C-alpha cells in the first residue's frame, strides 16, 4: 500500500518534497476556489494574496496531483507540508480517484475551511484578478501562482474553468 498526498494548488506544479512517484488524481465532493487569503506565501500579513482552498459541494470533482510519499522522509516531509500550508489549513484524508472512480486509496489533503481566519470567500472574477495582480509574498508574485496552476491543470488534461477564467484575465 502507498500513502499519498493530494495537491490541488501549488503542490500540483511545485511539490518540493521527496516522493516516490506521482499520478493525476481527483477528489469527489470538493470544489477548488480562490477563496483563501495568503499572508505568508503569495502575500504578506499587510497585503495578503489569494490562493485556492476547497469547499464541500456534493457533486463537485476537483483534479490535482497525487504524490506517493517516501516513508524514509516521513517526518521531514510532513513538517515541510505543515509549514507550507500553515495559514489555516487542516489535514483531511480523502478517497482518491485516479480516473476510474473513487478508490480505497486515500490522500492527505490540506483544506482551509470557512471557519479559518484567512478564509475570504468569493468575489467576481474581475475583483479577484485585481486582488491577485497586486499581491506578492515570500514565494513569489501571486499571478505566477494562478498561471502556473492553470498551465499544470491544462497539461494533465484537466483544466478547471474557475482557474482558467482567472488566469485568462491575468494574462490579458
Amino acid at each position, binding site marked *: *500500500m*502507498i*500513502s499519498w498526498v493530494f495537491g490541488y494548488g501549488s503542490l500540483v506544479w511545485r511539490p518540493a518534497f521527496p516522493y516516490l512517484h506521482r499520478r493525476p488524481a481527483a477528489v469527489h465532493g470538493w470544489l477548488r476556489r480562490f477563496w483563501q487569503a495568503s499572508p505568508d506565501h503569495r502575500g504578506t500579513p499587510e497585503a495578503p494574496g489569494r490562493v485556492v482552498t476547497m469547499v464541500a459541494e456534493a457533486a463537485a470533482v476537483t483534479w490535482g496531483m497525487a504524490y506517493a510519499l517516501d*516513508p524514509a522522509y516521513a517526518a521531514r516531509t510532513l*513538517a515541510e507540508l505543515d509549514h507550507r500550508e500553515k495559514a489555516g*489549513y487542516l489535514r483531511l*484524508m480523502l478517497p482518491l480517484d485516479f480516473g476510474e472512480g473513487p478508490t480505497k486509496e486515500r490522500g492527505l489533503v490540506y483544506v482551509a475551511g470557512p471557519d479559518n481566519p484567512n478564509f475570504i470567500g468569493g468575489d467576481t472574477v474581475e475583483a479577484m484578478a485585481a486582488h491577485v495582480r497586486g499581491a506578492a509574498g515570500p514565494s513569489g508574485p501571486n499571478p505566477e501562482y494562478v498561471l502556473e496552476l492553470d498551465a499544470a491543470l491544462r497539461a494533465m488534461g484537466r483544466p478547471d474553468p474557475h482557474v482558467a477564467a482567472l488566469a485568462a484575465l491575468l494574462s490579458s
Partner: protein
Amino acid sequence: MKRLLLLVLLLGCPTTPVEPEPEPDDPTPAHPSMMVRHHHKDVILQRLGRAPYDAILADVEERAAQDYEEDDPDVWSSSINGRNAERAQANAFLAWLFDDEAAADKARDGFTYLGTHWDTNQTWDINIRMPHSLMGYVNALDLLQATPWMPDDEVQAARAKLVDITDQFFAWFLLDEGVRAFVLGPAQNNHPIRTAAAIGYVALAFPDHPTADLWANWAFSELQYLWGPEGRYVQEDGGVSEGPFYFGFAWGVAAAIFIALDNLHADDPFELVQDCRNRNDGDPWAPISCVDGTPFTFANPLRDPSYHATVDWSLALSLPWGSRPPLADAYFNPFNGGSLLSSFGGDGRYAWDWLGNRDRPMEMHHGADLVGHHLAYFDDAVTMEPPPWTHRYLPAAGNAVLRSSWEQDALWMLLVGESGPARKTLHDHVDGTSLTLAAHGEYLLLDPGYYKPSQLDNAQTAHSPSHNLVLIDGLAAPNKGLLTNWGDADAALVGFDERGTAAFAVAEQTYQDTTVTRTAVMVDGLFGVVFDRLETTSGDAREHRWRMHGYAGYTSGGTFALADDGATWERPSGVGVQVAVASPDGLISAEEPPYTEGAPPHVHEFELNREVRDHAVLDAVITASAPDFLAILAPYSAPSAAFDLQELDVGGGVAFEITADGATYTATFDGTAGSLTAPDWTLTVDAAGAAFSP
C-alpha cells in the same frame, strides 16, 4: 476553601465502612471480563447509597439517558461513533448492574448505529480518536453478554462490526508503511499509546479472531515499549515528556486496557511475540533493541511503581487547587483515573487529588470514559490524604516544584529545566529556566499555555519570549521547529535543597553565548527570591530583558502597574504579586514590551474554557555584557502593611529588605555571590552553587 474540607463535603461522612471484597463466584462467568468482572457487581451495589458513588452512578445514568446520533452514511465519524459507544456502554453497564432489561434494549440498539464504513473517514489522526468507539462498544457487548437479553445472533453481528472496523484501522495505520511512518512514527507519545490501546482492547475481547494475535502482538509490544525505559516517554523520575495535559490522553486509555488485561489474565502469563514495526531510533529515542518475533511475557504495569510514579509526577506538578498547570502545550486540567489505583496498590493520595480538585472534582472523562471504572475500582477505604512530600525535585523530568503546603492557598513555584527526551517532544515549549508562581488560590506569574491559531504551526506561545526568562537581544534559546526539529534548547536542573517551607532549585541553560544559572528560592512559604547569574563568552554589551508574565492587565482583568524597579499585577479577586528587580551591573529600566492584541508576548490560553486572553508583561531592561539579576516575587492576598519590600542602598551590589509575617529577610547580590538571610537560616549563592546554612 481547603481541599480537606471539600473532600469531607464530597464524601458526606468521613467514617467510611471498609468492605471485604466478595469472593468471586465459582466458576466465574465468562462475561463481563473487560472493564469489570462478575464479582464487581456486589462490590458496586454495596457502595451505592453513599458519596461519592451515587454521584458517579448519576454520571453513568446521565450518559445512558442520551439519545443515539445517526452517523453520516458517507463519512464515518469518530466523534459520533465515540459518543454512541459511550452511551451503549453506559446502558449496558446499568443493564448488568441492575438487571435492567430496558437498559439492555437501549444498549443493544446502540449497535445498530455503528457502521462499518470506517474507510470513509476523513480524519488524518483518527487513530487517537478510536479508543472511545472501540473500547466503548467492546465494553457494551461484554456487559450485555452477562445479561439474559443479548441474543447470540446479535452478539455475532456486533462482534463482526467491531473486528471489521479494527481490521480496517490496523491495515491503514499499521500495515501501511507510509501512514505508519507519517502518523505514528514521529510521535512516540499518546498517539501510538491510544492506537495500541484501542486495537489491543479488541484483541483482548476477541482472541479467537484470525488477526487478533497480530493486533495483540503489536499493541502490547508498543505499550510495553512506551511505558518502559526504552520508549523514553516516561523519564526515570516519572516525568512524561509531552507534559501533564497530553499525558492524560495516554494514561486514561492505558489504565482501561491494563485493567481489562488484569481481569482476563490475572492468574496466567500473557504470552506474545514482539512486533517492532513502529520503533523509531531517531533522537531522542533509544536505539532499537526490539527483535520481531521474539517471545515475551507482557508485564502488566497496573501495580508497577514506575506506572504509579507517572501519576505522582502529575500530582507533584499540580497547582495548589489541584488542576495541572500549563506546562508545554497544556491548559488547566484535572487528572482522570489516578483514584482507580486504590484497587491496585496505589496510594490514597491519588483519590485525595481526584476528589479535591477545585476546578473540576471527580473528573472521569478526560482522555477516556472511566466513569463505570470508578464505581468498581475507586476504593474509598484507602486513606485519602495529601502526599507526604511538598517540594518535589524531578531533574530527569526537568521540573522542580516548590510548595509550602497542600492547602489551596499555598505558595507554589515551578522551575523548568528540561533536556533530552524530556524536552524533545512535539508539544514542547522553549522554556528552560522559566519560573511560574501561584499563591492565595490564584495563578499569578504565568506560563502562557496553548495558543495555536493555526492547527499546523507550533503554538505561538511556544517560543522563549512568551516565558519568564532572561532574553538576550530578544531571545533565549532558539525557537523549536516543526515536528521533530527539536532545536537547541536543552536546559538542566542542577541543584535543590529544602528546609521546611523554605526550598530552592537551580536551573541552567546556555544560549546566546551565555550561561544563565537561575536559583529560585521559596522563602518560608511567604515569597520567592530569584538569583540569576550570567556568564558569557561574548564581550559585547547586549540588551538583556529579565522578563516576567503576570496574570492581570488587558483582557485578563485586574490591574497592572509598572514601578521604577518592577511591577505589580493584581487579580480581580484582590490577590496579587509585586515583583522587584535589580542588577548589580547597573540600573535597570522597568518597561512593557510593545503590545499587539492577541499576539505574543501578551497572549495566553490556559483557562479550562480555552479563552484566549492578553496579560501584562514586565521587562527589566539593561544593556551590559552579562548582567546578573536579583528579584523578589512577593504575592499578597490584599495589600497591607504585613508585607514590606525595600531596596537597600549598598555598595558594590544590590539588596532588598523584606518584612513578611513579622519577620525580616535580607537578600543581597554583588555579581559574585548572593545571600538570603532569614531568621532561622541563611542561603548563599555563588559560582559553586547554592546552599543553606547552618
